[in-house]
């Protein structure tokens, strides 16, 4: 049985990724593939909606970190929203909360890109 699922959708020029379940070193490749698919299609405004993400290890965080510079250089960004408290605490432990915007809901996260443009 799969413990991790991923899907994404496009809302105007922003891609919203929905990781679901348990994201660790075993299934991180699927998360990276989704990220690369978006980068390949020139989408640089990315929202990661963590509503259904109940676990993340450094493998998953590494993907969020590894493409950030490339995305920001292209004028985009990665924003996170709807993060469960326990998952948020993990992001906070390594300092992600100082580097990324964490928003309460998806609309607000997408809206953040509109503020800039």
């Amino acid at each position, binding site marked *: 049985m799969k*413990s991790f699922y991923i899907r994404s959708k496009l809302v105007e020029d922003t891609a919203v990724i929905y990781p679901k379940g*348990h994201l*660790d*070193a*075993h299934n991180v490749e699927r998360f990276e593939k989704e990220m690369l698919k978006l980068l390949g299609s020139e989408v640089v405004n990315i929202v990661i909606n963590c509503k259904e993400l109940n*676990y993340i*290890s*450094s*493998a998953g*965080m*590494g*993907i969020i*970190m*590894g*493409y*950030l*510079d*490339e995305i920001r250089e292209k004028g985009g960004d990665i924003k996170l929203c709807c993060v469960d*408290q*326990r998952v948020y*605490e*993990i992001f906070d*432990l*390594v*300092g*992600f909360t*100082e*580097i990324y915007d964490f928003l309460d809901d998806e609309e607000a996260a997408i809206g953040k890109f509109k503020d800039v443009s």
Partner: protein
Amino acid sequence: MKKPQLENLKMFPEKPELSISIPSKTELLKMVVELASHIATLNHFSPSESQKIALAVDEAITNVIKHSYRNVIDEDIKLEFYTAPDGLKTRIVFTGVPPVLGKLGVNLDKMIKEGKKGGLGVELMRRIMDSVEYKTVGNINSCEMVKWKKKKSAV
């Protein structure tokens, strides 16, 4: 990070409360996380602390699979849990390439600039646990991590 006192470490029994051996397969990480979290909860750590302890164990085992066993499956990893009234100790025993630990602390800005995807695992282990110690004796490596319970403040 707090330094463990020798007398505190002696609080743990010599024999582990639970010991399992697993093959070096990443598909077993989730099972390990569930087990570690369950043991921490049984040992009266809060759900939030238990999940963090489980994450530290996940990171340690992921490192063993990736770096010591170079992703070769079916190598042996032994995981032991020692419980004491004031804390929990986990010990991971493995062979393969001895681990080399980087400096304490990470520079996230620099890692982002360099497009790095790795390097956060050991940092998480160190930030979550009160002590993280790697040892190599002969061809046997071990990673010992201790988490002490927070003292309840007096009302």
